[in-house]
């Protein structure tokens, strides 16, 4: 009898412990509160996905809250699966006041379902660079605020270029070959390798392919009638060959972190990547003198554009309870005349994604000046892979990796990509 009582008690204890655990681990939200949050203030909530930049967003929110007493701007970071969170909120019709979305298809999907507010009449609409309009528009109207832009191109070490006697950035393929030759003469590794990580190769291929395809290519690919191969594919693959020959030895062993660190510590003169590759430089060598130029894989100077596209879109929930206050917060976020405001906290650092309009940064780096010059002259093109079917990155990255590893040739690589794309369309 005693044995039975004890065993029942123990079983009950175990179940209780389990229930406690369940409650703890099923919480997927981690609230990072701004100021005290009560006392008659209207709370406006911005939900962000998990990223290393959440701290910076919080600082931006704190700056806003310290300036006025009416609104309490709160940032909530979702540590779990962001898309799952969104789907749950859509199902319960309980979307937050403002939240992050991916550009293009996600913004268009939410706009189509009439869940987000048309922001065409807001102040920022006229200030955004023209070249990125498609990323946040639906049926010609602006449905999101593009919070930051990401740029892919070739970042180069200005000091190492000077050492090798290179005075001008290359704009054609022939000039690129010349640059590599000069660097090799001085025993400087031209490119920092990152090829163990497939996604870096997807970015590279997107830049290269963007230069050799026509205007209708994206549509053809989405309909299933197009192909990655065309008669200009040679211009893509000769650039890949150039990189293979000029990335040092054992380039397949280096992953993205190793590559970023190699560039930051001056072991390599160039890296074909995005501005995020400079985040490592902040801790390794903050004085790194880094410039930027567009990928030159054709013989035409005009093709060497920078690949710039929207990174994060902020949208406003149409059914928000405090629309006026929400829009006020949005205007704070979009204010580019505010030197100590949101843009300063989220974009004013080496490696941070810049805002989608002119902004005077306190950061004084060559690459940012180069970027501004490209944007103001309209010399940019979108990230072409973002407009292809979702999941294409996972197909293109490994395919290019096969080419780098020498296991497939040009025709086979393009075939693998085509087959992969067809499968995504099913």
């Amino acid at each position, binding site marked *: 009898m005693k044995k039975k009582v004890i065993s029942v008690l123990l079983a009950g204890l175990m179940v209780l412990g389990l229930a406690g655990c369940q409650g703890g681990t099923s919480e997927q939200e981690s609230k990072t509160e701004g100021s005290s949050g009560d006392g008659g203030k209207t709370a406006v909530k911005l939900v962000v996905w998990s990223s290393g930049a959440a701290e910076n967003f919080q600082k931006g929110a704190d700056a806003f809250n310290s300036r006025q007493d009416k609104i309490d701007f709160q940032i909530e970071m979702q540590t779990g699966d962001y898309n799952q969170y969104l789907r749950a909120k859509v199902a319960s019709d309980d979307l937050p006041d403002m939240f992050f979305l991916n550009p293009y298809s996600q913004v268009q999907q939410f706009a189509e379902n009439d869940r987000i507010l048309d922001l065409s009449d807001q102040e920022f609409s006229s200030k955004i660079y023209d070249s990125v309009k498609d990323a946040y528009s639906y049926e010609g109207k602006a449905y999101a605020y593009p919070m930051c832009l990401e740029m892919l191109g070739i970042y180069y070490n200005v000091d190492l270029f000077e050492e090798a006697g290179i005075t001008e950035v290359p704009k054609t393929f022939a000039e690129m070959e010349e640059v590599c030759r000069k660097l090799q003469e001085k025993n400087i590794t031209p490119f920092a390798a990152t090829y163990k990580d497939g996604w870096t190769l997807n970015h590279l291929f997107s830049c290269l392919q963007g230069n050799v395809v026509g205007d209708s290519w994206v549509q053809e690919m989405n309909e299933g009638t197009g192909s990655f191969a065309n008669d200009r594919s040679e211009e893509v693959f000769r650039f890949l060959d150039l990189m293979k020959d000029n990335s040092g*030895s054992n380039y397949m062993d280096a*992953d993205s972190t190793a590559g970023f660190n190699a560039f930051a510590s001056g072991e390599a003169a160039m890296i074909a990547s995005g501005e995020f590759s400079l985040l490592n430089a902040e801790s390794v060598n903050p004085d790194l003198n880094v410039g930027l130029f567009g990928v030159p894989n054709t013989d035409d100077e005009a093709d060497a554009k920078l690949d710039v596209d929207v990174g994060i879109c902020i949208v406003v929930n149409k059914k928000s309870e405090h629309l006026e206050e929400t829009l006020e917060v949005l205007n704070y976020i979009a204010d580019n005349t505010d030197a100590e405001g949101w843009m300063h906290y989220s974009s004013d650092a080496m490696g941070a994604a810049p805002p989608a309009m002119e902004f005077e940064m306190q950061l004084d780096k060559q690459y940012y000046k180069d970027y501004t010059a490209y944007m103001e002259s309209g010399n940019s093109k979108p990230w072409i892979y973002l407009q292809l079917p979702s999941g294409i990155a996972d197909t293109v990255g490994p395919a290019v990796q096969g080419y780098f590893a020498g296991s497939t040739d040009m025709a086979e690589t393009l075939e693998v990509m085509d087959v992969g794309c067809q499968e995504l369309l099913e």
Partner: protein
Amino acid sequence: MDPLPFSSARTQKKRRWEAFCKARYSDREERCGMSDFLYKKNKKFYLSLLFPALLLYCAALAGPLLIGSLPYSFLNWNLIKGKKEFIGLGNYIKLFQDERFIHAVGFTIMLAVVSIILSNIVAFAVAFMLDRNVRGKGVIRSFFFIPNIISGVMVAFVWIFIFTNAIPNVGERLNLDYLVNISWFGNADMSMAAVVIVTTWQSTGFLMMLYVAGLQTIPRDVIEAAMLDGCVGLKKIFRIQLPLLMPTVTINLFVSIAGAFKSFDIPLSLTGGGPANSTQTIALNIYSDAFGAYKTGYASAKSMVLFLMVAVIAFIQLRITRKREVQM
């Protein structure tokens, strides 16, 4: 078996007991003993102890498998587009023609076989050597066990450093050009070898602990009697210790097989699927289909196939090693 009418309660009980014994030991020559008697008496109590664990198992594993994965595997479901349509066995037919999946199956089987054999041999050797009175036996055993505690991702990061930094450095100091220039992740073969090495390294510790425990259950007098009769060295290992260790070997093989087929974290963190998906295991292939290409219906079908594969192999292996168990 029909109890005869008008037979006493005593004969009925006896007949039921005989039936129970026959059913329990039908395939062996043994007889019912005390442990079986206690088992029959307290059967209900034992089952009730199992109940919470069984409930958890159903809720966490069996439930999602049968209510989630199985029905989803008959759909063509694109997670991002939200398109869901019933296609019956379409997914299953497709996966048997999927080149990448077949390659993944081949690689996983190769990885499983090689790493199971290697890690069991190494684990047994280490356990055997640590069985006698070596100084610091406990500490050495913990050192061997530590790789098992470290998460797969950390293990992979440590080994990336070893492969890309430490080994070339050692090669430079020793003037071994081959080691300096070797590209561990440059082609498919080297990447596969790297994954096998790291997987074996991590799983050896756990198996070693089980072998140590198993070796300690072998009664001393059996070993002494064998040695007196002149059975020493390799003969002793293969004729006496291994047969008596069969329950341990059963558990080890069972754990290794299930683990090796589900191998995911090490290939993902070490090679990311390798140059051009050459070191992609089945689990990694399923993951990339579900969350890379958003084809969740197709991935569910592959998961069901993986489940069946592991179940069949584990079942066969359990039967074979069960028969060879020798009970003292």
